[in-house]
């Protein structure tokens, strides 16, 4: 609670709003002491005056002091908004709780009631209530309470339904708490936050409705000092005294604004919301180091469509830039599949996205070069990148069910991929190409399925379509980011087989990003193992499995479920991937490493002969042992 309040006060807008609401409350309580005049005393000698020394905000059409009326109006405002919202809470929350918690016919009755409430706008319902009960603030506020209580009912019903699903209520039920106890002790506290947010916003809304009803002559008796009454009273005289509507108008507007800002602030803080804040600063591009700069002699050849050298990617952080990819170099030949392996947070996905220039907001390449088909990617503008994306390099993402727009047909989206790089193609040609692509990824009856939407496909089928999208313009490089992780095992194999087949048929260079060494063994020719943003080992897949040289690779292999199950439990790598802001000074794997020595911590370890380890030799020995074990298994 204290933490929430502190967080609220740290947001300037929320703190100001809270201060304003508090001030209105204090003014309401101390009104008689604060107001310079009696709010009802009339002075016919001085009507409709502008601001002056005795009347700081002037006088109204009966010569009453506007400031005093404004101060007393705060009382009406505070009373009206507190009353309506608390009555609404008292009616709506219990009804909603019962409906949500008990369900059954209770719930059906309540839902029908809500249907009716939905059909009649709040203000019209207020009119009906006033028609029945007569004019006056209390009646008006009863009407508003009814409207708000419907809303609270809906909210608490939904919340109670949600909470009911949760395990702890079941646990409480079996442990023999009475139903009332469950409602009061378990569910209500969890509903507090959304109810507070809604109540705050409703307090403002109550003021607006009160003002509207007063304006229509259906609210307060005209004499008494309410902001709504003052505003509506003054509008009749606004041509004689244009200043008159401003004090009550601004009082209402600012108070409602304060309530809304406060409500939004509470919601954001409770939601942990810094969601809206995007980093505007981009990471500083390092002076490109000599090592990272490809010399002319090394320039890529035709056979290597993807050539990444010394790539570093950084994001702006609280204390300076955070490097998530450090000097990664990978080369992939035509028709070759490179596995980019690592745990989550190892930088493998960011490496892949950097190749397409689609880093998340704030991210930037800070060093190195990326050549696709011999053309430099780093530093190109969006338009130039768009020419490359899809046509030379494309990407397939993890979860196919969200990788396609749910409200567009498959034909539309595959067609988009085709047209992006062949804008002059006729409609019929685009369609023909779409059918061809779906056939290529083995979708049955492609003609008919072009009109279907993504939700009509299974995960595996959807992933095939995403692959069709990616291959629409024959890219030389395909980056597949965990393309099978979201799929079930049999479907995984189909997708991997398809990728291998496409690689051989079309000669596409594939980068397969995965955490699963089984996938690497299945579908890759070479593998680069990444740890904490660095490539720690790179080798042909056979060599990597037979003789891992880096302790991390060995640990990964040891942690791989082999299926033969000699051990009782799955071995795991002790410790976890370090956050990129707290890396070890020397070898980044040292804190988790079994063969670590003092030398490992002394200085960063460079990549030499395909491995980034001072003890690569020693690792060889242990690797042999692992290899033997694996061979036995096979």
């Amino acid at each position, binding site marked *: 609670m204290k933490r929430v309040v502190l967080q609220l006060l740290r947001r300037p807008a929320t703190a100001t709003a809270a201060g304003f609401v508090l001030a209105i409350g204090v003014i309401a309580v101390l009104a008689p002491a604060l107001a310079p005049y009696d709010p009802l005393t009339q002075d016919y000698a001085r009507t409709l005056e502008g601001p002056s020394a005795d009347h700081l905000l002037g006088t109204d059409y009966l010569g009453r002091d506007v400031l005093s009326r404004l101060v007393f109006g705060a009382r009406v405002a505070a009373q009206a908004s507190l009353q309506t919202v608390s009555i609404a809470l008292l009616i709506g929350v219990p009804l909603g709780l019962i409906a949500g918690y008990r369900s059954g016919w209770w719930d059906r009755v309540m839902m*029908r009631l809500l*249907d*009716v409430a*939905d*059909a*009649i*706008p*709040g*203000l*019209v319902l207020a*009119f*009906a209530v*006033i*028609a*029945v*009960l007569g*004019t006056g603030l209390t009646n008006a506020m009863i009407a508003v309470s009814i409207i708000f209580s419907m809303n609270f009912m809906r909210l608490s019903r939904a919340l109670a339904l949600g909470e009911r699903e949760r395990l702890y209520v079941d646990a409480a039920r079996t442990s023999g708490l009475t139903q009332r106890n469950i409602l009061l002790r378990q569910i209500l506290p969890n509903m507090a936050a959304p109810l507070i947010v809604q109540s705050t916003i409703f307090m403002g809304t109550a003021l607006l409705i009160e*003002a*509207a009803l007063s*304006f229509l*002559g259906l609210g307060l008796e005209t004499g008494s000092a309410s902001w*709504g009454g003052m*505003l509506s009273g003054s*509008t009749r005289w*606004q041509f004689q005294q*244009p200043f008159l*509507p401003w004090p009550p*108008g601004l009082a*209402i*507007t600012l108070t*409602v*604004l304060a309530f*809304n*800002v406060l409500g939004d602030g509470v919601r954001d803080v409770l939601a942990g919301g810094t969601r809206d804040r*995007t980093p505007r600063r981009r990471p500083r591009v390092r002076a490109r180091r000599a090592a990272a700069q490809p010399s002319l002699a090394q320039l890529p050849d035709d056979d290597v469509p993807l050539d990444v050298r010394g790539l570093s990617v950084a994001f702006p952080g609280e204390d300076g830039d955070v490097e998530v990819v450090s000097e990664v170099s990978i080369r992939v030949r035509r028709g070759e599949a490179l596995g980019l392996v690592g745990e989550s947070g190892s930088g493998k996905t960011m490496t892949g996205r950097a190749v*397409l220039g*689609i880093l998340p907001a704030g991210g930037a390449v800070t060093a190195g070069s990326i050549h696709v088909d011999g053309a430099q990617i780093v530093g190109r503008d969006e338009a130039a*990148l*768009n020419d*490359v*994306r*899809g*046509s030379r390099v*494309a*990407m397939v*993402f993890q979860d196919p069910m*969200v*990788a*396609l*727009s*749910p*409200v*567009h047909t498959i034909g539309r989206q595959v067609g988009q*991929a085709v047209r*992006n*790089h062949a804008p002059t193609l006729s409609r019929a040609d685009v369609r023909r190409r779409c059918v061809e692509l779906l056939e290529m990824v083995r979708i049955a009856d492609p003609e008919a399925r072009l009109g279907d*939407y993504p*939700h009509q496909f299974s995960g595996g089928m959807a992933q095939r379509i995403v692959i069709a*999208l*990616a291959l629409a313009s024959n890219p030389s490089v395909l980056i597949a980011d965990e393309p099978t992780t979201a799929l079930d095992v049999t479907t995984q194999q189909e997708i991997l087989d398809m990728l291998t087949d496409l690689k051989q048929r079309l000669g596409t260079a594939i980068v397969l990003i995965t955490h699963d060494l089984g996938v690497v063994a299945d579908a890759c020719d070479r593998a680069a193992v990444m740890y904490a943003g660095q490539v720690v080992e790179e080798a042909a897949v056979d060599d990597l499995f037979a003789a891992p040289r880096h302790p991390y690779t060995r640990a990964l292999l040891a942690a791989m479920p082999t299926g033969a199950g000699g051990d009782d439990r799955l071995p795991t790598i002790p410790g976890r991937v370090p956050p990129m802001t707290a890396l070890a000074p020397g070898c980044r794997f040292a804190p988790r490493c079994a063969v670590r020595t003092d030398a490992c911590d002394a200085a960063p370890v460079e990549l030499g002969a395909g491995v980034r380890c001072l003890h690569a030799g020693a690792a060889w020995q242990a690797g042999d042992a692992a290899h033997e074990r694996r061979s036995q298994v096979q």
Partner: protein
Amino acid sequence: MLGRLVGLRLLGVVPQLALVSALVFALTYLVPGSPAAVLLGSRATPEGIAALEARLGLDRPVWVQFQDWVSGVARGDLGTSWYGGREVTDVIGQHLLPTVCLIVGGTIVAVTLGLSAGVLAALRQGGIVDRVVGVITAAGIAVPSFWLGLLLLSLFAVQLGWLPVLSWTPPDRDLGAWARGLVLPSLAAGAAGAAIIARHSRSAMLEALEAPYVQTLRAIGTPRRTIVLRYAIKNAMTPILTVVAFQVSTLIAASFVIEQVFTMPGIGSELINAVARKDIPVVQGITLVVALAVIVIYLVADIGYAIVNPRARPQ
């Protein structure tokens, strides 16, 4: 397929309509004491009350009155006013046009301003446009609509003289004057809705632009313009439509208030007079018509929803 959806929804509307009309009918009996006593006020005598009740038909059993009322409603007969004996349907019919014009105008303002401001703010997230839209929408939600109307009136009509002070001209008399007269009332009525729609479309748009399929589209080289105009906006429409439907239904009530500011001869003034003098049949009739309009608005929104979102279509 859409026909099926409409059919399903209409089936759901029937009990809703029945309940609404029962509630509206019950209004008469919720008046404390006898409505006749209230109508007669201080002049009420027991004989007078009895005579008036007989004249208004209030002395019959409740269920007979209800049957009478329901069959009347079904035939399009909403009863007669307690004052002057005018047919309620006539009262509504004669004042419908200005109100409908205002609601349509307000909806156009709310949807066009709200959508474009929200989408623009989302595309320039964190930039100057986004901040300006943020401030304007916050103020737009907080300002009382009738005051905004008065400010617009005094600025654009009285001081600058760009638009007429008198807002309502029947369209068959002078089409130009009719259109010019509607500008300010529509702005005042639609402002709050525009602000709320802007906020929701901004967040819906931000969400759509962050969605994974946008990455897919980018990865195949789709220009940002196309991503925004063809894909993100259509995806954002799903959440926006719900808000729009709610705002339009709120706009009906808001237009009743705005009519008073611009002295438009719409349903609002009839309703407010009727409320003030407890002319229950008129209140009932107008409430019922409003409820019907709201139900139709939600129906249309649901159909729009199914057009935009294939998952919302009945399979």
